Protein backbone atom coordinates (compact mmCIF):
# COMPACT_ATOMS: atom_id res chain seq x y z
CA UNK A 1 0.00 0.00 0.00
CA UNK A 2 1.03 3.59 -0.43
CA UNK A 3 3.69 5.00 1.89
CA UNK A 4 4.04 8.69 2.55
CA UNK A 5 7.19 10.45 1.45
CA UNK A 6 8.45 13.60 3.13
CA UNK A 7 6.03 15.75 1.12
CA UNK A 8 2.92 13.80 2.13
CA UNK A 9 4.09 13.79 5.72
CA UNK A 10 4.79 17.53 5.69
CA UNK A 11 1.33 18.28 4.32
CA UNK A 12 -0.48 16.18 6.91
CA UNK A 13 1.61 17.69 9.70
CA UNK A 14 0.88 21.20 8.42
CA UNK A 15 -2.80 20.39 8.42
CA UNK A 16 -2.57 19.22 12.03
CA UNK A 17 -0.99 22.54 13.05
CA UNK A 18 -3.53 24.43 10.99
CA UNK A 19 -6.33 22.70 12.83
CA UNK A 20 -4.60 23.05 16.18
CA UNK A 21 -4.49 26.79 15.64
CA UNK A 22 -8.11 26.95 14.52
CA UNK A 23 -9.20 24.91 17.56
CA UNK A 24 -7.24 27.19 19.86
CA UNK A 25 -8.92 30.23 18.35
CA UNK A 26 -12.31 28.60 18.79
CA UNK A 27 -11.70 27.62 22.40
CA UNK A 28 -10.47 31.15 23.12
CA UNK A 29 -13.66 32.58 21.67
CA UNK A 30 -11.90 34.27 18.75
CA UNK A 31 -14.10 32.34 16.34
CA UNK A 32 -17.81 31.66 16.46
CA UNK A 33 -19.07 28.18 15.76
CA UNK A 34 -20.48 29.48 12.49
CA UNK A 35 -16.95 30.35 11.39
CA UNK A 36 -15.32 27.29 12.93
CA UNK A 37 -17.85 24.74 11.69
CA UNK A 38 -16.76 24.55 8.03
CA UNK A 39 -13.15 24.42 9.17
CA UNK A 40 -13.68 21.59 11.64
CA UNK A 41 -15.80 19.74 9.10
CA UNK A 42 -12.91 19.85 6.66
CA UNK A 43 -11.11 17.83 9.34
CA UNK A 44 -13.95 15.42 9.93
CA UNK A 45 -15.11 16.80 13.26
CA UNK A 46 -18.89 16.91 13.69
CA UNK A 47 -20.87 17.95 16.71
CA UNK A 48 -23.29 15.08 17.22
CA UNK A 49 -25.93 14.32 19.80
CA UNK A 50 -23.73 13.21 22.67
CA UNK A 51 -20.28 14.52 21.84
CA UNK A 52 -18.05 15.46 18.94
CA UNK A 53 -17.67 12.77 16.32
CA UNK A 54 -14.42 12.38 14.41
CA UNK A 55 -14.38 10.77 10.99
CA UNK A 56 -10.99 9.43 10.01
CA UNK A 57 -10.14 8.83 6.37
CA UNK A 58 -9.28 5.31 5.29
CA UNK A 59 -8.32 5.97 1.67
CA UNK A 60 -10.05 3.47 -0.59
CA UNK A 61 -10.64 1.36 2.51
CA UNK A 62 -7.05 0.12 2.84
CA UNK A 63 -5.32 -0.19 6.22
CA UNK A 64 -2.27 -1.94 7.66
CA UNK A 65 -1.89 -3.40 11.13
CA UNK A 66 0.07 -0.42 12.46
CA UNK A 67 -2.75 1.89 11.50
CA UNK A 68 -5.45 -0.37 12.92
CA UNK A 69 -3.54 -0.63 16.20
CA UNK A 70 -3.36 3.15 16.32
CA UNK A 71 -7.13 3.29 15.82
CA UNK A 72 -7.50 0.85 18.73
CA UNK A 73 -5.29 3.13 20.82
CA UNK A 74 -7.42 6.13 19.90
CA UNK A 75 -10.56 4.20 20.82
CA UNK A 76 -9.14 3.39 24.22
CA UNK A 77 -7.45 6.70 24.97
CA UNK A 78 -9.78 9.29 23.52
CA UNK A 79 -13.08 7.53 23.00
CA UNK A 80 -15.10 4.83 24.72
CA UNK A 81 -13.35 1.72 23.54
CA UNK A 82 -14.84 1.24 20.08
CA UNK A 83 -15.14 2.68 16.59
CA UNK A 84 -17.63 2.51 13.76
CA UNK A 85 -16.93 1.80 10.09
CA UNK A 86 -18.96 3.80 7.60
CA UNK A 87 -20.55 3.34 4.20
CA UNK A 88 -17.63 5.29 2.68
CA UNK A 89 -14.94 3.02 4.05
CA UNK A 90 -13.97 5.47 6.80
CA UNK A 91 -14.01 5.02 10.57
CA UNK A 92 -15.82 7.23 13.07
CA UNK A 93 -15.37 7.78 16.77
CA UNK A 94 -18.48 9.08 18.49
CA UNK A 95 -17.24 10.36 21.86
CA UNK A 96 -14.47 12.79 21.02
CA UNK A 97 -13.62 15.98 22.91
CA UNK A 98 -12.76 19.06 20.89
CA UNK A 99 -9.81 19.76 23.15
CA UNK A 100 -8.35 16.35 22.25
CA UNK A 101 -8.96 16.57 18.52
CA UNK A 102 -5.69 18.25 17.51
CA UNK A 103 -3.68 15.67 19.46
CA UNK A 104 -5.63 12.85 17.85
CA UNK A 105 -4.85 14.27 14.43
CA UNK A 106 -1.20 14.43 15.46
CA UNK A 107 -1.21 10.77 16.48
CA UNK A 108 -2.89 9.81 13.25
CA UNK A 109 -0.19 11.64 11.29
CA UNK A 110 2.34 9.38 13.00
CA UNK A 111 0.84 6.43 11.13
CA UNK A 112 0.14 8.22 7.86
CA UNK A 113 -3.51 8.86 8.55
CA UNK A 114 -5.63 12.00 8.60
CA UNK A 115 -9.15 13.39 8.64
CA UNK A 116 -8.73 15.74 5.71
CA UNK A 117 -11.87 16.45 3.71
CA UNK A 118 -13.85 13.65 5.35
CA UNK A 119 -16.84 15.91 5.78
CA UNK A 120 -18.18 19.29 4.86
CA UNK A 121 -18.52 20.54 1.33
CA UNK A 122 -15.35 18.84 0.24
CA UNK A 123 -14.06 16.26 -2.15
CA UNK A 124 -14.48 13.30 0.16
CA UNK A 125 -12.71 9.99 0.66
CA UNK A 126 -12.24 8.27 -2.69
CA UNK A 127 -13.69 4.78 -2.39
CA UNK A 128 -12.75 1.69 -4.32
CA UNK A 129 -13.56 -1.97 -4.63
CA UNK A 130 -12.66 -3.62 -1.30
CA UNK A 131 -11.42 -6.68 -3.21
CA UNK A 132 -8.94 -4.55 -5.16
CA UNK A 133 -5.69 -6.31 -5.88
CA UNK A 134 -7.17 -9.68 -4.95
CA UNK A 135 -10.21 -10.22 -7.15
CA UNK A 136 -9.81 -12.28 -10.26
CA UNK A 137 -12.22 -10.20 -12.33
CA UNK A 138 -10.52 -6.80 -12.22
CA UNK A 139 -8.68 -5.34 -15.20
CA UNK A 140 -6.13 -3.93 -12.80
CA UNK A 141 -5.96 -2.76 -9.21
CA UNK A 142 -7.96 0.51 -9.14
CA UNK A 143 -6.18 1.85 -6.09
CA UNK A 144 -3.18 3.53 -7.77
CA UNK A 145 -5.73 5.75 -9.48
CA UNK A 146 -7.61 6.28 -6.25
CA UNK A 147 -4.37 7.26 -4.51
CA UNK A 148 -3.21 9.55 -7.33
CA UNK A 149 -6.55 11.31 -7.44
CA UNK A 150 -6.57 11.48 -3.64
CA UNK A 151 -3.39 13.50 -3.71
CA UNK A 152 -4.46 15.68 -6.60
CA UNK A 153 -7.76 16.52 -4.89
CA UNK A 154 -6.21 17.35 -1.52
CA UNK A 155 -6.52 21.09 -0.83
CA UNK A 156 -7.54 21.88 -4.42
CA UNK A 157 -7.68 25.66 -4.11
CA UNK A 158 -10.33 26.34 -6.74
CA UNK A 159 -12.64 23.89 -4.97
CA UNK A 160 -12.12 25.08 -1.42
CA UNK A 161 -15.81 25.75 -0.98
CA UNK A 162 -17.85 23.50 -3.19
CA UNK A 163 -21.65 23.73 -3.27
CA UNK A 164 -21.89 20.43 -1.44
CA UNK A 165 -19.97 17.23 -0.78
CA UNK A 166 -18.45 15.37 -3.71
CA UNK A 167 -17.89 11.63 -3.66
CA UNK A 168 -15.60 9.75 -6.03
CA UNK A 169 -15.39 5.99 -6.54
CA UNK A 170 -13.06 3.89 -8.69
CA UNK A 171 -13.68 0.31 -9.75
CA UNK A 172 -11.99 -1.92 -12.29
CA UNK A 173 -14.37 -4.78 -12.94
CA UNK A 174 -17.74 -5.40 -14.52
CA UNK A 175 -19.05 -6.34 -11.10
CA UNK A 176 -19.60 -3.24 -8.99
CA UNK A 177 -18.80 -4.03 -5.37
CA UNK A 178 -18.44 -0.38 -4.38
CA UNK A 179 -21.81 1.18 -5.33
CA UNK A 180 -19.99 3.24 -7.96
CA UNK A 181 -23.14 4.40 -9.75
CA UNK A 182 -24.32 6.13 -6.58
CA UNK A 183 -21.39 8.53 -6.52
CA UNK A 184 -20.98 12.09 -7.80
CA UNK A 185 -18.07 10.92 -9.93
CA UNK A 186 -17.77 7.23 -10.62
CA UNK A 187 -14.98 5.70 -12.64
CA UNK A 188 -14.71 2.26 -14.15
CA UNK A 189 -11.28 1.39 -15.52
CA UNK A 190 -11.52 -0.14 -18.99
CA UNK A 191 -9.31 -1.04 -21.92
CA UNK A 192 -10.10 0.23 -25.40
CA UNK A 193 -9.63 -1.77 -28.58
CA UNK A 194 -6.01 -0.69 -28.76
CA UNK A 195 -5.47 -2.12 -25.29
CA UNK A 196 -5.03 1.31 -23.74
CA UNK A 197 -6.24 1.99 -20.22
CA UNK A 198 -8.91 4.63 -19.76
CA UNK A 199 -12.05 5.37 -17.81
CA UNK A 200 -15.77 5.13 -18.30
CA UNK A 201 -16.98 8.20 -16.41
CA UNK A 202 -20.27 8.26 -14.51
CA UNK A 203 -21.10 11.67 -13.04
CA UNK A 204 -24.17 12.80 -11.20
CA UNK A 205 -25.07 10.00 -8.82
CA UNK A 206 -25.99 10.46 -5.20
CA UNK A 207 -28.29 9.41 -2.40
CA UNK A 208 -29.99 11.85 -0.06
CA UNK A 209 -33.32 13.55 -0.42
CA UNK A 210 -33.45 13.22 -4.22
CA UNK A 211 -31.49 10.14 -5.25
CA UNK A 212 -30.03 9.82 -8.72
CA UNK A 213 -28.05 7.11 -10.40
CA UNK A 214 -24.98 8.43 -12.23
CA UNK A 215 -25.18 8.48 -16.02
CA UNK A 216 -22.29 7.79 -18.38
CA UNK A 217 -20.76 11.01 -19.71
CA UNK A 218 -17.83 9.33 -21.45
CA UNK A 219 -17.07 5.86 -22.75
CA UNK A 220 -13.37 6.45 -22.59
CA UNK A 221 -11.30 9.21 -21.04
CA UNK A 222 -7.62 8.37 -21.61
CA UNK A 223 -5.96 7.53 -18.32
CA UNK A 224 -3.65 10.50 -18.15
CA UNK A 225 -6.38 13.02 -18.83
CA UNK A 226 -8.62 11.92 -16.01
CA UNK A 227 -7.56 14.69 -13.64
CA UNK A 228 -8.33 17.33 -16.29
CA UNK A 229 -11.73 15.73 -16.80
CA UNK A 230 -12.40 15.74 -13.09
CA UNK A 231 -11.45 19.41 -12.87
CA UNK A 232 -13.85 20.16 -15.72
CA UNK A 233 -16.71 18.42 -13.94
CA UNK A 234 -15.93 20.18 -10.67
CA UNK A 235 -15.66 23.59 -12.30
CA UNK A 236 -18.95 23.29 -14.18
CA UNK A 237 -20.66 22.29 -10.95
CA UNK A 238 -18.86 24.83 -8.74
CA UNK A 239 -19.88 27.66 -11.05
CA UNK A 240 -23.45 26.71 -11.86
CA UNK A 241 -24.92 24.89 -8.89
CA UNK A 242 -27.43 26.68 -6.76
CA UNK A 243 -26.11 28.21 -3.58
CA UNK A 244 -29.39 29.19 -1.99
CA UNK A 245 -30.82 25.85 -0.87
CA UNK A 246 -28.58 23.25 0.70
CA UNK A 247 -30.92 20.50 -0.47
CA UNK A 248 -30.44 21.43 -4.12
CA UNK A 249 -26.70 21.86 -4.32
CA UNK A 250 -25.36 18.34 -4.94
CA UNK A 251 -24.09 17.86 -8.46
CA UNK A 252 -26.82 15.33 -9.24
CA UNK A 253 -29.35 18.18 -9.04
CA UNK A 254 -27.43 20.29 -11.56
CA UNK A 255 -27.13 17.32 -13.91
CA UNK A 256 -30.85 16.74 -13.63
CA UNK A 257 -31.70 20.41 -14.18
CA UNK A 258 -29.40 20.92 -17.16
CA UNK A 259 -30.07 17.49 -18.57
CA UNK A 260 -27.37 14.92 -19.24
CA UNK A 261 -26.67 16.15 -22.75
CA UNK A 262 -26.12 19.77 -21.75
CA UNK A 263 -24.11 18.84 -18.68
CA UNK A 264 -21.89 16.64 -20.83
CA UNK A 265 -21.51 19.43 -23.39
CA UNK A 266 -20.42 21.93 -20.76
CA UNK A 267 -18.02 19.45 -19.21
CA UNK A 268 -16.49 18.57 -22.60
CA UNK A 269 -16.01 22.28 -23.37
CA UNK A 270 -14.33 22.92 -20.04
CA UNK A 271 -12.31 19.70 -20.42
CA UNK A 272 -10.90 20.84 -23.75
CA UNK A 273 -9.88 24.13 -22.16
CA UNK A 274 -8.32 22.55 -19.06
CA UNK A 275 -6.30 20.11 -21.17
CA UNK A 276 -4.46 23.13 -22.57
CA UNK A 277 -3.25 24.07 -19.08
CA UNK A 278 -1.10 20.99 -18.60
CA UNK A 279 -2.22 20.17 -15.06
CA UNK A 280 -2.33 16.39 -15.41
CA UNK A 281 0.23 14.35 -13.50
CA UNK A 282 2.88 12.65 -15.63
CA UNK A 283 3.36 8.93 -16.22
CA UNK A 284 6.38 8.97 -13.91
CA UNK A 285 4.28 10.05 -10.95
CA UNK A 286 1.59 7.49 -11.68
CA UNK A 287 4.28 4.80 -11.96
CA UNK A 288 5.79 5.90 -8.66
CA UNK A 289 2.45 5.51 -6.91
CA UNK A 290 1.50 2.31 -8.75
CA UNK A 291 4.72 0.69 -7.53
CA UNK A 292 3.24 0.64 -4.03
CA UNK A 293 0.36 -1.49 -5.25
CA UNK A 294 2.20 -4.31 -6.98
CA UNK A 295 0.93 -7.68 -5.84
CA UNK A 296 2.47 -9.03 -2.64
CA UNK A 297 4.91 -11.95 -3.00
CA UNK A 298 2.31 -14.70 -3.28
CA UNK A 299 3.66 -18.17 -2.66
CA UNK A 300 3.16 -20.84 -5.27
CA UNK A 301 2.46 -24.52 -5.00
CA UNK A 302 0.07 -23.99 -2.10
CA UNK A 303 -2.64 -26.48 -1.20
CA UNK A 304 -6.12 -25.68 -2.54
CA UNK A 305 -8.04 -28.09 -0.34
CA UNK A 306 -9.77 -26.84 2.77
CA UNK A 307 -10.46 -29.28 5.59
CA UNK A 308 -14.17 -28.89 6.24
CA UNK A 309 -14.48 -31.41 9.05
CA UNK A 310 -15.36 -28.74 11.60
CA UNK A 311 -19.00 -28.02 10.68
CA UNK A 312 -19.00 -24.45 12.02
CA UNK A 313 -15.88 -23.73 10.01
CA UNK A 314 -17.50 -25.24 6.93
CA UNK A 315 -20.50 -22.94 7.26
CA UNK A 316 -18.21 -19.94 7.56
CA UNK A 317 -16.11 -20.98 4.56
CA UNK A 318 -19.20 -21.34 2.39
CA UNK A 319 -20.39 -17.84 3.13
CA UNK A 320 -17.42 -15.61 3.90
CA UNK A 321 -14.74 -16.62 1.42
CA UNK A 322 -14.41 -15.06 -2.03
CA UNK A 323 -12.19 -16.37 -4.83
CA UNK A 324 -8.70 -14.92 -5.07
CA UNK A 325 -6.76 -14.43 -8.27
CA UNK A 326 -3.68 -16.19 -6.86
CA UNK A 327 -3.91 -20.00 -6.56
CA UNK A 328 -3.96 -21.22 -2.98
CA UNK A 329 -5.29 -17.93 -1.62
CA UNK A 330 -8.71 -16.66 -0.57
CA UNK A 331 -10.36 -13.36 0.21
CA UNK A 332 -11.76 -13.43 3.75
CA UNK A 333 -14.80 -11.39 4.65
CA UNK A 334 -14.95 -10.51 8.32
CA UNK A 335 -18.47 -9.89 9.58
CA UNK A 336 -19.08 -6.89 11.79
CA UNK A 337 -22.78 -7.76 11.91
CA UNK A 338 -23.17 -10.15 14.85
CA UNK A 339 -26.74 -10.90 15.85
CA UNK A 340 -27.44 -8.75 18.89
CA UNK A 341 -24.56 -6.41 18.10
CA UNK A 342 -24.34 -3.06 16.37
CA UNK A 343 -23.41 -3.30 12.71
CA UNK A 344 -20.12 -1.76 11.71
CA UNK A 345 -18.99 -1.27 15.30
CA UNK A 346 -15.72 -2.80 16.46
CA UNK A 347 -14.11 -2.77 19.89
CA UNK A 348 -10.50 -1.84 20.50
CA UNK A 349 -9.82 -5.47 21.45
CA UNK A 350 -11.34 -6.70 18.21
CA UNK A 351 -9.25 -4.20 16.27
CA UNK A 352 -6.13 -5.70 17.86
CA UNK A 353 -7.23 -9.19 16.83
CA UNK A 354 -7.83 -8.13 13.25
CA UNK A 355 -4.55 -6.21 13.15
CA UNK A 356 -2.69 -9.33 14.27
CA UNK A 357 -4.49 -11.45 11.69
CA UNK A 358 -3.78 -8.97 8.91
CA UNK A 359 -0.13 -8.77 9.83
CA UNK A 360 0.35 -12.51 10.17
CA UNK A 361 -1.94 -13.91 7.50
CA UNK A 362 -2.72 -11.21 4.93
CA UNK A 363 0.55 -9.48 4.03
CA UNK A 364 -0.23 -6.87 6.67
CA UNK A 365 -3.23 -5.55 4.86
CA UNK A 366 -6.94 -5.30 5.54
CA UNK A 367 -9.82 -3.50 3.86
CA UNK A 368 -12.96 -1.73 4.97
CA UNK A 369 -15.99 -2.45 2.77
CA UNK A 370 -18.70 0.16 2.23
CA UNK A 371 -21.03 -2.47 3.65
CA UNK A 372 -19.43 -1.84 7.06
CA UNK A 373 -17.60 -5.16 7.13
CA UNK A 374 -13.89 -5.88 6.93
CA UNK A 375 -11.82 -7.88 4.46
CA UNK A 376 -8.54 -9.74 4.82
CA UNK A 377 -7.63 -9.72 1.16
CA UNK A 378 -4.80 -12.26 0.81
CA UNK A 379 -5.13 -15.29 3.08
CA UNK A 380 -3.64 -18.68 2.23
CA UNK A 381 -6.30 -21.34 2.14
CA UNK A 382 -4.06 -23.36 4.44
CA UNK A 383 -4.40 -20.62 7.07
CA UNK A 384 -8.16 -20.20 6.90
CA UNK A 385 -8.90 -22.48 9.83
CA UNK A 386 -6.51 -20.64 12.15
CA UNK A 387 -7.90 -17.30 10.99
CA UNK A 388 -11.47 -18.46 11.55
CA UNK A 389 -10.74 -19.71 15.05
CA UNK A 390 -9.32 -16.37 16.10
CA UNK A 391 -12.15 -14.46 14.47
CA UNK A 392 -14.65 -16.73 16.19
CA UNK A 393 -13.05 -16.19 19.57
CA UNK A 394 -13.30 -12.44 19.01
CA UNK A 395 -16.95 -12.51 17.93
CA UNK A 396 -16.10 -11.69 14.33
CA UNK A 397 -17.02 -14.95 12.62
CA UNK A 398 -20.71 -14.61 11.81
CA UNK A 399 -21.29 -16.31 8.46
CA UNK A 400 -23.76 -13.79 7.09
CA UNK A 401 -22.12 -12.02 4.17
CA UNK A 402 -24.84 -10.43 2.02
CA UNK A 403 -27.52 -12.34 3.93
CA UNK A 404 -30.55 -10.83 5.62
CA UNK A 405 -28.67 -10.10 8.85
CA UNK A 406 -25.81 -8.36 7.03
CA UNK A 407 -27.61 -5.07 7.36
CA UNK A 408 -26.20 -1.66 6.53
CA UNK A 409 -27.44 0.93 9.01
CA UNK A 410 -26.40 4.47 9.75
CA UNK A 411 -25.88 5.46 13.41
CA UNK A 412 -29.31 7.15 13.33
CA UNK A 413 -31.00 9.03 16.12
CA UNK A 414 -29.08 7.15 18.79
CA UNK A 415 -26.02 9.17 17.78
CA UNK A 416 -26.65 11.60 14.96
CA UNK A 417 -28.00 15.12 15.26
CA UNK A 418 -29.28 15.00 11.70
CA UNK A 419 -31.45 11.94 12.27
CA UNK A 420 -35.22 11.74 12.54
CA UNK A 421 -35.45 8.20 13.84
CA UNK A 422 -33.33 5.47 15.31
CA UNK A 423 -31.98 2.93 12.87
CA UNK A 424 -29.86 0.66 15.06
CA UNK A 425 -32.75 -0.84 17.07
CA UNK A 426 -34.59 -1.59 13.82
CA UNK A 427 -31.53 -3.36 12.44
CA UNK A 428 -31.16 -5.31 15.68
CA UNK A 429 -34.78 -6.43 15.70
CA UNK A 430 -34.70 -7.50 12.06
CA UNK A 431 -31.51 -9.46 12.68
CA UNK A 432 -33.10 -11.14 15.70
CA UNK A 433 -36.23 -12.00 13.72
CA UNK A 434 -34.18 -13.73 11.02
CA UNK A 435 -31.36 -15.00 13.23
CA UNK A 436 -31.79 -18.69 12.47
CA UNK A 437 -28.79 -19.60 10.28
CA UNK A 438 -30.67 -22.17 8.22
CA UNK A 439 -33.43 -19.66 7.49
CA UNK A 440 -30.85 -17.04 6.54
CA UNK A 441 -29.18 -19.36 4.07
CA UNK A 442 -32.50 -20.37 2.65
CA UNK A 443 -33.33 -16.74 1.98
CA UNK A 444 -30.00 -16.18 0.29
CA UNK A 445 -28.69 -12.80 -0.78
CA UNK A 446 -30.90 -10.09 0.70
CA UNK A 447 -29.43 -6.64 1.23
CA UNK A 448 -31.29 -4.57 3.78
CA UNK A 449 -30.20 -0.95 4.21
CA UNK A 450 -31.51 1.40 6.87
CA UNK A 451 -31.21 5.18 7.10
CA UNK A 452 -32.35 7.26 10.07
CA UNK A 453 -33.05 10.30 7.91
CA UNK A 454 -33.31 11.52 4.36
CA UNK A 455 -29.55 12.07 4.10
CA UNK A 456 -29.46 8.36 3.35
CA UNK A 457 -26.10 7.55 4.90
CA UNK A 458 -27.49 4.03 5.34
CA UNK A 459 -27.96 3.83 1.55
CA UNK A 460 -31.61 2.83 1.82
CA UNK A 461 -32.21 3.88 -1.80
CA UNK A 462 -29.88 1.05 -2.81
CA UNK A 463 -31.34 -1.67 -0.61
CA UNK A 464 -33.11 -4.72 -1.91
CA UNK A 465 -35.16 -3.78 1.09
CA UNK A 466 -34.67 -0.21 2.22
CA UNK A 467 -35.95 1.41 5.38
CA UNK A 468 -36.10 5.14 5.94
CA UNK A 469 -36.73 6.58 9.38
CA UNK A 470 -38.84 9.73 9.48
CA UNK A 471 -40.29 11.98 12.14
CA UNK A 472 -44.08 11.71 12.10
CA UNK A 473 -45.47 14.33 14.47
CA UNK A 474 -42.70 13.77 16.98
CA UNK A 475 -42.69 9.98 16.87
CA UNK A 476 -40.44 7.68 14.90
CA UNK A 477 -41.94 6.23 11.76
CA UNK A 478 -40.43 3.99 9.11
CA UNK A 479 -40.99 3.88 5.37
CA UNK A 480 -40.38 0.59 3.62
CA UNK A 481 -38.83 0.49 0.17
CA UNK A 482 -38.14 -2.39 -2.21
CA UNK A 483 -36.01 -3.02 -5.25
CA UNK A 484 -32.85 -0.96 -4.89
CA UNK A 485 -29.33 -2.05 -5.72
CA UNK A 486 -25.84 -0.63 -5.45
CA UNK A 487 -24.26 -3.29 -7.62
CA UNK A 488 -23.79 -3.26 -11.40
CA UNK A 489 -27.54 -4.00 -11.66
CA UNK A 490 -28.05 -0.56 -10.11
CA UNK A 491 -31.58 0.54 -9.34
CA UNK A 492 -33.42 2.84 -6.97
CA UNK A 493 -35.72 1.36 -4.35
CA UNK A 494 -39.41 2.30 -4.42
CA UNK A 495 -41.60 3.05 -1.46
CA UNK A 496 -44.24 0.43 -0.66
CA UNK A 497 -46.89 2.59 0.96
CA UNK A 498 -47.74 4.09 4.35
CA UNK A 499 -45.10 3.91 7.07
CA UNK A 500 -44.88 1.81 10.19
CA UNK A 501 -43.72 2.11 13.75
CA UNK A 502 -40.65 0.16 14.80
CA UNK A 503 -42.41 -3.11 15.55
CA UNK A 504 -44.57 -2.69 12.48
CA UNK A 505 -41.72 -2.30 10.03
CA UNK A 506 -40.03 -5.45 11.29
CA UNK A 507 -43.29 -7.34 10.75
CA UNK A 508 -43.67 -5.74 7.33
CA UNK A 509 -40.20 -6.89 6.32
CA UNK A 510 -41.11 -10.39 7.43
CA UNK A 511 -44.29 -10.34 5.34
CA UNK A 512 -42.35 -9.16 2.30
CA UNK A 513 -39.78 -11.88 2.84
CA UNK A 514 -42.47 -14.54 3.24
CA UNK A 515 -44.10 -13.39 0.04
CA UNK A 516 -40.78 -13.78 -1.74
CA UNK A 517 -40.39 -17.28 -0.34
CA UNK A 518 -43.84 -18.18 -1.55
CA UNK A 519 -43.47 -17.05 -5.15
CA UNK A 520 -39.77 -17.31 -5.90
CA UNK A 521 -38.44 -19.41 -8.72
CA UNK A 522 -35.30 -21.54 -8.39
CA UNK A 523 -32.15 -19.46 -8.22
CA UNK A 524 -33.97 -16.18 -7.69
CA UNK A 525 -32.73 -13.77 -5.07
CA UNK A 526 -35.25 -11.51 -3.36
CA UNK A 527 -34.34 -8.67 -5.72
CA UNK A 528 -34.78 -10.92 -8.77
CA UNK A 529 -38.24 -12.01 -7.71
CA UNK A 530 -39.23 -8.42 -6.99
CA UNK A 531 -38.02 -7.34 -10.43
CA UNK A 532 -39.87 -10.18 -12.08
CA UNK A 533 -43.25 -9.63 -10.42
CA UNK A 534 -43.20 -5.97 -9.45
CA UNK A 535 -44.50 -4.08 -6.44
CA UNK A 536 -48.20 -5.03 -6.46
CA UNK A 537 -47.99 -8.51 -5.01
CA UNK A 538 -45.49 -7.40 -2.38
CA UNK A 539 -47.68 -4.44 -1.48
CA UNK A 540 -50.67 -6.72 -0.94
CA UNK A 541 -48.62 -9.09 1.17
CA UNK A 542 -47.29 -6.22 3.30
CA UNK A 543 -50.50 -4.27 3.81
CA UNK A 544 -53.05 -7.09 3.48
Amino acid at each position, binding site marked *: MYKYDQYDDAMVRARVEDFRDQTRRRLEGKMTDDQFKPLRLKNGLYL*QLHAYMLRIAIPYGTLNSTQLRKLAHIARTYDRGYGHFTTRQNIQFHWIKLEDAPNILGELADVEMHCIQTSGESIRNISADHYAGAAADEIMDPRPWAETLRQMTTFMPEFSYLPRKFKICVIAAEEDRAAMRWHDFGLRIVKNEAGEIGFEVYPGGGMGRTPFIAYKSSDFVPQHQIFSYLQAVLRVWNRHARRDNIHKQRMKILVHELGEEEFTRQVEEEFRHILTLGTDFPQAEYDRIAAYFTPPPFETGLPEEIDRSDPDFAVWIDQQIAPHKAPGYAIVNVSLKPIGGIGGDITAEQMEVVADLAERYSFDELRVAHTQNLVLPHVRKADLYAVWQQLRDAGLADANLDLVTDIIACPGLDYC*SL*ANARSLPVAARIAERFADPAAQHDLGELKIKISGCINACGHHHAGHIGILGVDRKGTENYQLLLGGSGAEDVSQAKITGPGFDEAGVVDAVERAVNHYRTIREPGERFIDTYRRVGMEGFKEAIYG
Partner: protein
Amino acid sequence: MKILTGNDLKTGRVIWWDGQGWSLHVEDAADVHDDGEAILAREEAACRVNGPMFIEGERTAEGVRPAHIKDRIRALGPTVRADLTLKPADPNAGNWVI
Protein backbone atom coordinates in the same frame (compact mmCIF):
# COMPACT_ATOMS: atom_id res chain seq x y z
CA MET B 1 -41.17 24.46 30.54
CA LYS B 2 -38.59 26.17 28.34
CA ILE B 3 -35.19 24.53 28.71
CA LEU B 4 -31.82 25.82 27.57
CA THR B 5 -29.47 23.08 26.41
CA GLY B 6 -26.44 22.54 24.23
CA ASN B 7 -23.07 20.84 24.24
CA ASP B 8 -20.01 21.70 26.26
CA LEU B 9 -17.62 23.45 23.91
CA LYS B 10 -14.50 21.57 25.02
CA THR B 11 -15.87 18.10 25.63
CA GLY B 12 -19.00 17.99 23.50
CA ARG B 13 -21.02 16.57 26.41
CA VAL B 14 -24.71 17.37 26.54
CA ILE B 15 -25.42 20.07 29.11
CA TRP B 16 -28.55 21.60 30.61
CA TRP B 17 -28.91 25.07 32.11
CA ASP B 18 -29.86 24.58 35.75
CA GLY B 19 -30.51 28.20 36.61
CA GLN B 20 -26.98 29.02 37.72
CA GLY B 21 -24.69 26.88 35.66
CA TRP B 22 -24.54 23.88 33.41
CA SER B 23 -25.39 20.34 34.48
CA LEU B 24 -24.87 17.03 32.73
CA HIS B 25 -28.22 15.84 34.04
CA VAL B 26 -31.57 16.78 32.54
CA GLU B 27 -33.17 16.40 35.98
CA ASP B 28 -31.42 19.63 36.95
CA ALA B 29 -32.80 21.59 33.98
CA ALA B 30 -34.44 24.86 34.88
CA ASP B 31 -37.30 26.69 33.24
CA VAL B 32 -35.65 29.77 31.71
CA HIS B 33 -39.00 31.49 31.12
CA ASP B 34 -38.30 34.74 29.28
CA ASP B 35 -34.70 35.25 30.36
CA GLY B 36 -33.36 32.59 28.07
CA GLU B 37 -32.07 34.71 25.20
CA ALA B 38 -29.82 36.76 27.44
CA ILE B 39 -28.46 33.67 29.17
CA LEU B 40 -27.85 31.90 25.87
CA ALA B 41 -25.99 34.85 24.40
CA ARG B 42 -23.85 35.30 27.50
CA GLU B 43 -22.96 31.64 27.89
CA GLU B 44 -22.16 31.19 24.21
CA ALA B 45 -19.98 34.28 24.13
CA ALA B 46 -18.15 33.01 27.22
CA CYS B 47 -17.48 29.71 25.43
CA ARG B 48 -19.29 27.71 28.08
CA VAL B 49 -21.71 26.19 25.59
CA ASN B 50 -21.67 25.23 21.91
CA GLY B 51 -24.75 24.98 19.74
CA PRO B 52 -27.16 26.25 22.43
CA MET B 53 -30.87 25.98 21.81
CA PHE B 54 -34.20 26.11 23.59
CA ILE B 55 -36.33 23.01 23.83
CA GLU B 56 -39.71 22.24 25.30
CA GLY B 57 -40.12 19.94 28.25
CA GLU B 58 -42.32 19.21 31.24
CA ARG B 59 -41.92 18.24 34.85
CA THR B 60 -43.25 14.75 35.45
CA ALA B 61 -43.23 12.45 38.45
CA GLU B 62 -39.95 10.98 37.17
CA GLY B 63 -38.38 14.38 36.70
CA VAL B 64 -37.84 16.67 33.73
CA ARG B 65 -38.95 15.12 30.44
CA PRO B 66 -37.95 16.79 27.16
CA ALA B 67 -40.81 16.91 24.71
CA HIS B 68 -38.93 15.54 21.72
CA ILE B 69 -37.41 12.07 21.52
CA LYS B 70 -34.16 13.48 20.17
CA ASP B 71 -33.66 15.47 23.35
CA ARG B 72 -34.55 12.50 25.51
CA ILE B 73 -31.85 10.55 23.70
CA ARG B 74 -29.49 13.48 24.29
CA ALA B 75 -30.44 13.37 27.94
CA LEU B 76 -29.80 9.67 28.37
CA GLY B 77 -27.38 8.41 25.72
CA PRO B 78 -27.66 5.89 22.87
CA THR B 79 -30.59 3.52 23.49
CA VAL B 80 -28.65 0.61 21.98
CA ARG B 81 -25.73 0.87 24.41
CA ALA B 82 -26.95 1.06 27.98
CA ASP B 83 -23.34 0.98 29.15
CA LEU B 84 -22.65 4.28 27.39
CA THR B 85 -25.62 6.13 28.87
CA LEU B 86 -25.89 8.18 32.02
CA LYS B 87 -27.79 5.29 33.61
CA PRO B 88 -25.80 2.17 32.72
CA ALA B 89 -27.18 0.16 35.62
CA ASP B 90 -30.83 0.80 34.80
CA PRO B 91 -32.16 -1.78 32.31
CA ASN B 92 -35.34 0.21 31.76
CA ALA B 93 -33.68 3.55 31.10
CA GLY B 94 -34.25 3.16 27.37
CA ASN B 95 -38.01 2.98 27.84
CA TRP B 96 -38.03 6.48 29.22
CA VAL B 97 -36.72 7.72 25.86
CA ILE B 98 -39.64 6.26 23.96
